[in-house]
């Protein structure tokens, strides 16, 4: 098995710049969740400068592409148009890791690299992730139900780096 690189949020520029495609990482600390419905709203709030009003700090953050329901969490496909189009603006706003599944486009891989951000994939291991999630809280847009913007406090979520430094694991 590969050696794991331990990461703690918020992620520093240095911790991200050392990552390369194929690395297995563990993530500990606070992370955000969002998918199709809410991420475009977060981009809009970022562009309008209202993230602070919503209680969101994206600097060094991780965004996990998942719903949060009584059944738990698990990655949705990150290459859905409404999710993948948020990679670049959210990276510019401070997000350092986008966490989901599926191959993303070459353009997105390049955009991530330009912002020193990465894409990591996480298997859909809901029970395991449930055992590694210690807190969950709705932060914004509660009207979206399980697709609201949530904060999770997690311990050692395991993921694999799929895009970093302009390279993709799917190349």
């Amino acid at each position: 098995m590969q050696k794991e690189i331990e990461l703690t949020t918020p992620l520093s520029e240095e911790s991200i710049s050392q990552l390369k495609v194929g690395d297995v990482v563990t993530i500990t600390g606070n992370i955000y969740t969002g998918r199709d419905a809410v991420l475009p709203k977060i981009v809009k709030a970022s562009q309008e400068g209202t993230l602070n009003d919503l209680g969101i700090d994206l600097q060094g953050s991780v965004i996990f592409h998942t719903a949060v329901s009584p059944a738990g969490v698990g990655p949705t496909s990150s290459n859905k148009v409404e999710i993948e189009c948020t990679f670049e603006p959210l990276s510019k706003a401070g997000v350092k890791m986008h966490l989901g599944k599926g191959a993303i486009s070459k353009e997105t891989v390049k955009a991530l690299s330009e912002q020193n951000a990465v894409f990591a994939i996480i298997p859909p291991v809901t029970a395991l992730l449930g055992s590694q999630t210690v807190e969950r809280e709705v932060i914004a847009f509660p009207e979206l139900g399980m697709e609201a913007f949530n904060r999770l406090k997690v311990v050692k979520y395991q993921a694999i780096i799929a895009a970093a430094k302009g390279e993709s694991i799917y190349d």
Partner: protein
Amino acid sequence: MISIQEKVADCLVRAGSTFREDQKNAYRKAIADETNVQSCWVMQQVLDNAIVAEDRRSPLCDDTGIPHLFLEVGKKRSVTGELLGQIKEGVAMGLRQLPGRPMAIKGDDYARIDQSGGLDEDSGALAPSPILIKPVEEDVLRLTILMLGGGPAIRGITQRVFHKHSVDVVIEEIVNRAKEGVSKLGCSPCVLAVGIGRSQFEATSLMMEAMVYGDFSKQSDFEKRITEKVNEANIGPLGLGGKHSVLATFAKIGPQRASGVRIVALRPCCCFEPRRATIEL
């Protein structure tokens, strides 16, 4: 005495939270055989997840799936409207216990299509699929619950194959369809569920039966040939490459039409499927 509803509820929770032994062994065997380190890591995560889910009786995946019901009925047994009602109540109870992801779409025909009516917050509001009933020789009334997720439903395909009087032609077409489905599925390694019949309904029913009876440790020559050919594509778990894009194929070949066409139903089941459990009522 345990009620029918309680038996069904427990069966549903097991279906959504438990790997069978043949399933665990298939993963162990694939991990031992795989040379791609990243693919090994993915499969080990899936197996670890199964162990935690079984221990906690919690969902294997946050897409907990739509309950599909398969009822085997012996010659001396009877199915009443009352029994079917009890089964339906048990399904709702099980969905609340698991808990299932609240996925019941509210509203009229149009609202259910465009999802404008919102979701019911009650996990138990999710209606099961129509029940499939099969007469059997055994003196038994046995219910199998399958929890079928959305990803494989997106990638599944039921379509004709012009067989040209050759099994090879049919296998080749299944393999080609499977390669495309598996590569786009995301949550692999897969199990390929296949039904071959005379109509779309019959082929899909046979595919359901294949998922009900399929065993990772018992693979026919037909099933092995499909698995091996798809695995040559080197798609691998989560698309990361490797020898194990598909762990097994579960196929059921029914009666066939006297013509040049075969109807093939194919479902690339995700890494947790077929999520199933069985209970005698």
